[in-house]
């Protein structure tokens, strides 16, 4: 009898040795005459257990991890192929509390399916959304997405349906769907996990978007920093084409849609939508002035629906189960679920998809298990390098768009980076300015020069040079950046700096030691 063994091919699992584990299990099975079928799945997102190996026993998956090649013989001895006890065992995967407490809608199939297989995707509820979409008019699809309350998961939180309606309303023959997969924010990896673990969900979401707005061509703008994700996407696009889920006359519907994968070249600013469009056109990724909105004049000057990976990957479940189903999750104006990413100095880092409404504290302690180093957590940065630092005294804040923004922070793409009490917030603030200087596209002066000047003023403060004057200067400089920059890079770099100054002023002067 063949036993199915799942060993992730997710980048993070690979970074912890999943490839060597896979080879060791294959070798050991051969030596023992055990017949196994290894599936290279995505990650379940329990990263402290990676490489996490799962074995299918009587229709249920049993988890073992973190597995090293040295553990493999022992696992076979213990009978892990039959789901038997071993010190690395965690029982049935679905019953691990970290996973069992989550509401996985966007991530329903990640870690479960074989990411390159259309058959497996279909067997797990894939393409029901597209089938439903094909029975609706474009306007009806847009209405479903609008009614679901889905807002752009890239960080701007703009209602997806309204954006699509703008594109649909343009009476132009050539339109595009452009997927922003330039996930450059530190602390975020949910796009990568979708692309590596369930890329067909993204492809289905883009296809539905194309049909909804009247576009026949889509582009995915992925990152050169994500070679594994790029390979998984390329494989999935080919598989979808072969199965006629992309290309001409999709499933006999008379609708056409194709996707081309484009790979960026290491520029953080290209995550800004207009800069991404310039880069897709093969140019320097310099930000465009808005208006015109990309929905009216986007890629190659044509109306373009620019959406984040998670937004698009959430569309299939909305079309499959209805707007109401999705809208019923969440609080206030933050509807549905958000895949949060627990990163940095946490014991149990990983992917936690929950309905909006939990607190930061629950995420950091109930899921994250506190710091990895065992020291007290001092602060977290939410929403990437342009997000504010939130001090431990404010960990009871609710994680949704409105509540975070009321405290001067932002949710962004849902990445949470935790720091213990050894962090020097003066250094983190200076790094924010340095990062802006390195990544500035150079088009507008507040960002290009302000970021370098910001580093100098912070250095002067640290050296104790004219502190009052320099502090005033720093605030004026940040006002100029915030209100005068063309895009969020220069405009939001002041957020981490200001929040660090506000909550940790003692870190900015000369050290006392």
């Amino acid at each position, binding site marked *: 009898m063949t036993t199915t063994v799942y060993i992730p091919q997710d*980048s993070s699992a*690979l970074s912890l040795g999943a490839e060597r584990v896979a080879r060791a299990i294959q070798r050991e099975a051969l030596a023992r005459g055990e017949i196994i079928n290894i599936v290279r799945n995505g990650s379940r997102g329990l990263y402290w257990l990676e490489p996490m190996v799962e074995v299918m026993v009587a229709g249920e998956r049993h988890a073992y991890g973190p597995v090293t090649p040295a553990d493999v013989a022992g696992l076979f001895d213990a009978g892990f192929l039959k789901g038997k006890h071993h010190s690395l065992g965690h029982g049935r995967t679905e019953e691990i509390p970290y996973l069992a407490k989550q509401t996985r809608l966007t991530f329903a199939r990640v870690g479960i399916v074989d990411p390159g297989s259309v058959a497996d995707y279909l067997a797990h509820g894939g393409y029901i959304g597209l089938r439903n979409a094909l029975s609706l008019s474009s306007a009806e699809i847009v209405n479903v997405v609008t009614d679901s309350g889905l807002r752009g998961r890239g960080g701007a939180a703009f209602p997806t349906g309204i954006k699509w309606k703008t594109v649909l309303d343009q009476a132009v023959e050539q339109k595009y769907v452009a997927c922003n997969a330039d996930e450059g924010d530190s602390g*975020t990896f949910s796009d990568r996990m979708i692309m590596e673990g369930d890329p067909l969900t993204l492809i289905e979401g883009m296809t539905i978007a194309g049909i909804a707005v009247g576009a026949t061509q889509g582009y995915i703008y992925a990152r050169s920093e*994500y*070679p*594994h994700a790029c390979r998984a996407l390329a494989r999935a696009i080919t598989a979808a084409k072969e199965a006629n889920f992309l290309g001409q006359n999709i499933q006999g519907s008379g609708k056409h849609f194709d996707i081309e994968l484009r*790979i960026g*070249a290491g520029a953080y600013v290209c995550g800004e939508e207009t800069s991404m469009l310039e880069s897709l056109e093969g140019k320097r990724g310099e930000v465009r002035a808005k208006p015109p909105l990309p929905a009216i004049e986007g890629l190659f000057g044509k109306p373009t629906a620019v959406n984040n990976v998670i937004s698009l990957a959430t569309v299939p479940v909305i079309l499959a189960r209805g707007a109401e189903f999705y809208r019923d999750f969440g609080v206030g104006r933050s509807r549905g679920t958000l895949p949060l990413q627990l990163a*940095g100095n946490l014991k149990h880092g990983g992917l936690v998809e929950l309905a909006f409404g939990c607190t930061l504290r629950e995420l950091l302690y109930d899921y994250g298990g506190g710091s990895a180093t065992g020291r007290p957590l001092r602060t977290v940065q939410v929403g990437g390098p342009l997000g504010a630092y939130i001090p431990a005294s404010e960990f009871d804040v609710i994680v949704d768009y409105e509540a975070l923004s009321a405290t001067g922070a932002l949710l962004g793409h849902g990445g949470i*980076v935790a720091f213990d009490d050894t962090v020097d917030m003066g250094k983190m603030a200076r790094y924010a300015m340095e990062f802006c200087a390195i990544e500035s596209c150079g088009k507008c002066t507040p960002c290009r020069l302000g970021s370098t000047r910001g580093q100098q003023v912070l250095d002067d403060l640290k050296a104790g040079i004219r502190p009052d004057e320099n502090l005033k200067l720093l605030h004026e400089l940040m006002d100029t950046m915030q209100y005068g920059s063309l895009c969020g890079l220069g405009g939001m770099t002041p957020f981490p700096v200001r929040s660090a100054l506000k909550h940790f002023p003692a870190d900015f002067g000369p050290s006392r030691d």
Partner: protein
Amino acid sequence: MTGLSSADASTVEKIAQNFASTPGPVIEILHGVQNALGYVPAEAIAIIASVLNLSRAEIHGVVTFYHHFRSTPPGRKTIQVCRAEACQSMHGVPLEAHVKTTLGIDYHETTADGHFSLEPIYCLGNCACAPSIMVGDEIYGRVTPAVFDELIDEEKASS
């Protein structure tokens, strides 16, 4: 044409021709050239410009805008160290210092024996397993100075 062999020049020309009819081809071509030659030589810029009927300045501008494209040949293996916040929260800064000391080079440099080039990178998306580095196309998480030393020894032994 100086410094570029005729074989390399024809590789560049072929890549440029392949993509010439794709919409917005410049970055695709530059990826192709860097994958084939390891970098984008100055001479390649003129060839690409001539195939696409663009100015050399336009191509040069694209090459220099993006961190990923390099204008000099890399060492046999490129090591990229993540400098972003999540890695900093897990002792990424001392790791950076250790890497530079061990290799005896700074960012954007190549070791004298031509073995390793060192580049900073801003987020590998491995933020729950920080700090991270990439060696060639392979990503490594939870890297300590000791783990790094082992990796370098393995790399040296296998080449």
